[in-house]
């Protein structure tokens, strides 16, 4: 029997993958071809979606991008026998975009059936949990410290230290919370991981539970991700059925329960303390720290709260060893970071690389330049609170320290590309506008400062080219306002909104009439 893979992730489906799968099924039965379709996750090569793959003796062969209307032609060219044709891309593993990556988190993405425990195990899954089940909690925490793993949500705090704090609190109800509120524009790595390889996250959270003595976990997922929600619900049910969750994990007698909870469209709930408030059923208002969530977290109990990729990385650290993980990357940025190429980019998708390659190489060698074919004007790395970088700054190394030194933020690895048609005054204005919409309202500089920020930028727009004095006065006012927001806000929402604003003014003064 012939096996054909058609992705089921959000982006593939948004580009018509469901219709492609239906067309292949219909065409096959019309031609009397015995064929099974597996709905895999995506490989993350989104510019090639819908990417159809066929199993051959030489390996999986790829065709793309395929539309439903192309399916007849694919069969005419005998794609189901792996023959070359119009959409042929050769062996999937040999596509340079994929071949030149160093995949850790996404090693199984698009390869396995995302909802099959057996498929996950056949590709190295749950080997890490088996190892962790034989270890003492402190030894598990030590492994995570040894790996150098840092939080992938944006703040890059060492995960092992967080875990140690929770481990050291007296025995009581503790929690593992996964922050799956991936709200940054230009990021989709968490989404793809949950849709393409959800057991990796489940395994990582289970190991975290063993490490700190937590028996209950929650995945807080944003409501904008309905497909990830379906995938997680199904994967959790399958993990329970296979004995990998519940009160006797893999026959060890140890307990870990896990549940997915939906957010409700508030960007601020990606901030860990407001996420905890939201999980408790309250408005997502930021909490002051201390106390740290590791000591007083969910429902007032000690809580490990980590991003999807952080927890998922634990699976690989325990499968292949902390040493293996640590040897990837540079300096204190160990391991890999799945970069997400987005916006005006020719070849958008997931590019997972060890820390330390250059942003320009990522944009040119992988991304292929802009989609529009025009020159790159600005690149925003790290989401809506990240700085806008001009072309001259693109040789920067992709690691936490280099970005911090450039007053920028690597964050969650989102890279949004703008071509020369972008107006950076409008982008600065949007940063403030977004803060107006999404501020939780707790801190005055963020709640009100953002509204004043929009107004001041409007005044700059109105006066530029007409009244230089008024423009200059308002630029000074905006600079003061940015200071107030940066130093007078509890969390990154108000504290970092000035980054995109200031970087736009600094690097693109011509758009502000300078």
């Amino acid at each position, binding site marked *: 029997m012939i096996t054909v893979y058609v992705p089921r992730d959000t982006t593939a489906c*948004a*580009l018509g993958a469901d219709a492609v799968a239906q067309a292949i099924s219909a065409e096959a039965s019309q031609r009397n071809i015995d064929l099974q379709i597996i709905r895999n996750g995506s490989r993350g090569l989104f510019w090639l979606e819908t990417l159809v793959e066929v199993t051959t003796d030489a390996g999986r062969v790829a065709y793309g991008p395929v539309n439903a209307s192309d399916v007849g032609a694919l069969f005419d060219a005998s794609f189901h026998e792996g023959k070359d044709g119009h959409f042929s891309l050769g062996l999937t593993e040999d596509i340079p975009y994929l071949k030149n990556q160093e995949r850790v988190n996404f090693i199984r993405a698009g390869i396995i059936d995302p909802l099959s425990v057996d498929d996950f195990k056949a590709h190295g899954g749950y080997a890490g949990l088996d190892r962790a089940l034989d270890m003492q909690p402190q030894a598990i925490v030590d492994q995570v410290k040894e790996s150098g793993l840092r939080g992938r949500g944006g703040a890059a705090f060492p995960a092992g230290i967080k875990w140690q704090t929770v481990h050291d609190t007296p025995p009581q109800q503790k929690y593992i919370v996964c922050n799956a509120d991936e*709200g940054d524009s230009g990021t*989709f790595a968490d989404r793809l991981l949950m849709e393409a390889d959800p057991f990796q996250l489940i395994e990582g959270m289970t190991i975290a539970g063993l490490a700190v003595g937590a028996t209950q976990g929650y995945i807080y997922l944003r409501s904008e991700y309905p497909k990830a929600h379906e995938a997680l619900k199904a994967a959790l049910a399958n993990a329970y059925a296979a004995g990998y969750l519940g009160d006797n994990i893999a026959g060890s007698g140890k307990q870990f329960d896990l549940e997915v909870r939906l957010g409700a469209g*508030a960007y601020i709930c990606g901030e860990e303390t407001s996420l905890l408030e939201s999980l408790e*059923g309250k408005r997502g208002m930021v909490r002051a720290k201390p106390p740290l969530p590791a000591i007083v977290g969910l429902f007032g109990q000690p809580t490990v709260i980590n991003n999807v990729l952080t927890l998922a990385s634990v699976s690989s650290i325990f499968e292949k060893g902390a040493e293996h993980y640590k040897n990837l990357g540079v300096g204190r940025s160990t391991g890999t970071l799945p970069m997400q190429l987005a*916006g005006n980019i020719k070849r958008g998708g997931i590019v997972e690389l060890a820390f330390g390659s250059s942003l320009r190489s990522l944009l040119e060698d992988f991304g292929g330049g802009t989609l529009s074919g025009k020159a790159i004007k600005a690149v925003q790395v790290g989401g809506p609170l990240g700085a806008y970088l001009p072309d001259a700054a693109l040789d920067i190394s992709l690691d936490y320290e280099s970005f911090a030194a450039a007053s920028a933020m690597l964050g969650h690895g989102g890279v949004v590309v*703008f071509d020369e048609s972008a107006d950076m005054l409008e982008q600065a204005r949007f940063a403030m506008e977004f803060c107006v919409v999404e501020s939780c309202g707790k801190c005055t500089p963020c709640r009100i400062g953002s509204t004043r920020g929009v107004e001041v930028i409007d005044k700059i727009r109105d006066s530029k080219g007409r009244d230089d004095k008024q423009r200059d006065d308002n630029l000074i006012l905006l600079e003061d306002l940015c200071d107030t927001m940066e130093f007078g806000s509890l969390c990154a929402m108000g504290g970092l909104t000035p980054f995109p604003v200031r970087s736009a003014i600094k690097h693109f003064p011509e758009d502000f009439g300078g």
Partner: protein
Amino acid sequence: MSPAFDKAAIDDIIAQHQALPGALLPILHAIQHAVGHVPADTVPAIATALSLSRAEVHGVISFYHHFHSKPMGDNIVQICRAEACQAVGARELEQHATTKLATALGNTSADGKVSLEPVYCLGNCACGPSVQIGDEVHARVTPERFDALINELKVRELEMSAPHAKEGEANS
């Protein structure tokens, strides 16, 4: 005026979820899923079940963009306004959509068919501009594609209201 929802069904939803730790969001999601919005008349029952004040429940509903306290249009169309989509024409798409439907973002078209909502990222950032209709995300939505999607909604609605019309069309 009688409430536009089944009170017994709401009580069932509350009873099913109220023992969960942090039950309020799961309850609100379930009610909105069943009714289409969270009617203000359901607030007292929720508050009583969770030992909260009505103000606290109202405060949560109004905090989250996802929850609606008023009825919405037949279809919810969300346009992504975030940066990655802006870089490939989301600002123009937003203009086009508000003109086409003669309604501002956050409002419902005069015929009640479409509620046009802003959304900040659907996680489809490599293939924007992105639009979500119901639970379905659409990629690379140009103004022409947007018009086609809105027309498909209308055709689907005609088919639903007149199941035989489709057969007639197919034969002609």
